[in-house]
């Protein structure tokens, strides 16, 4: 008795990827095991830790709480899709390196997704908004301090790029 497979076509990091998936295969398992995009991580599989965060149609969601088949016809962005088109780290990714906003790196992809989504919606967030935006991403290494610093740093750099006002000085 093998499970029925469903055809899916999902745009992942700008490229349409197809597959035949059992209904119960989670989106995160499809990304990791079928597409070998192992940057997205599994931490709890019950929607609390946020390590599995990806963007669905531009908004961060927990990919352990979606079945791959549900994403058919939608757009997914993973950490692998955050870099610049030429493959260099984005301003946010580079800021994470500048402030050492990670240690073991396990929660980092999810953090980056949550942070990038915040900066996309609120280019100049306050500290309170930053902590709220990453409030659903648990980290056991950093105590969040350098992550908050990185997001502030990125916001300041992006403001300089666009010539607008920033809440923060780039560190």
């Amino acid at each position, binding site marked *: 008795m093998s*499970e*029925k497979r*469903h055809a899916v076509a999902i745009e992942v990091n700008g490229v349409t990827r197809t597959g035949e998936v*059992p*209904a*119960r295969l*989670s989106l995160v*398992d499809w990304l990791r095991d079928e597409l070998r995009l192992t940057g997205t991580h599994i931490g709890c*599989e*019950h*929607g609390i830790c*946020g390590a599995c*965060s990806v963007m*669905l149609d531009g*908004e*961060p*969601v*927990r990919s*352990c*709480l*979606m*079945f791959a*088949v*549900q994403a*058919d*016809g939608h757009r997914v962005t993973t950490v692998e899709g955050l870099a610049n088109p030429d493959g260099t780290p984005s301003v946010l990714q580079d800021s994470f390196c500048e402030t050492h906003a990670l240690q073991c790196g396990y929660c980092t992809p999810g953090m980056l997704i*949550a942070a990038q*989504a915040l900066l996309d919606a609120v280019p100049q967030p306050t500290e309170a908004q930053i902590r*709220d*935006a990453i*409030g*659903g991403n648990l980290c056991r290494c950093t105590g969040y301090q350098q992550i908050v610093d990185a997001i502030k740093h990125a916001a300041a750099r992006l403001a300089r790029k666009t010539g607008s006002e920033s809440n923060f000085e780039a560190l």
Partner: protein
Amino acid sequence: MKSAPFDYVRAASAEEACELLREGGDDVKLLAGGQSLIPMMAMRLTRPSRLIDINEVPQLKFIALEEGVARIGACTRQCVVARDDGLAARVPLLRKALAWVGHTQTRNRGTLGGSLAHADPAAELPLAAQVLGAQMGIRSASGARTLRAPEFFVGPLTTALEPQECLEEIHWPVWTERRTGSAFTEVSRRHGDFAIIAACAQVAVDDDGRCTRASFGLTGGGTTPLAFPALAARLVGTRLDDGITQSAAHDAAHELAPGADLHASANYRKHLASVLAARVLREAYAEARGKS
């Protein structure tokens, strides 16, 4: 923590969803945001034989602001509900409640109807529905019906929805009194967690600051969210002075009769219930007074 196997079908319309529910058995479930259902499936606490995905049904995703009522499709995402300024102006409790619901990521996927249908005994949206007397528009293959919130919430994780019924839209009464104030607060262990106790209130006052209408409620007691219409009626005509507010809050806590769980004892919950009920009444009243 991989779910047990299940059949999957994506419904294109509410009618199709209901038809599929009718032909399925008792263990067919609707899949909306999945933020509550999928963790339970991952833990194999529930194993539906079939999931009917209603995330792609356009007729279930809408916000319609009408005279005296705001109608919201059951599959409208919580983040969409929270962002809608027109809705916030008419039913301010929704945005206030949603500030306490989960995290950005869960609100991006979780739906209004999903939270109501799941009826977690510590969830915020069911409390708001109870306090505002929201009406649930329910559809099945054999027709449609409406249930008011008190009839809808039956017990912990239990609503009056029959296995073959689908929550279609929710009607939120709009208070047209000019001086209306509202408040929602809760105490939870961490930000975004389910409430230990949550309280909300909506109060309208006349130009002299006397209460003309009030509604308040509590959840976290372990059963259903509770509104206290009789206690609220005692507030009408008063200026919600301390004694009156405390008394109403105290009696509400007593009526809630909360239980204990891992995170809080019954006595602590009861105490919180009284404290938070008084707080939201005071806040709502103050906000109403401040309107012109």
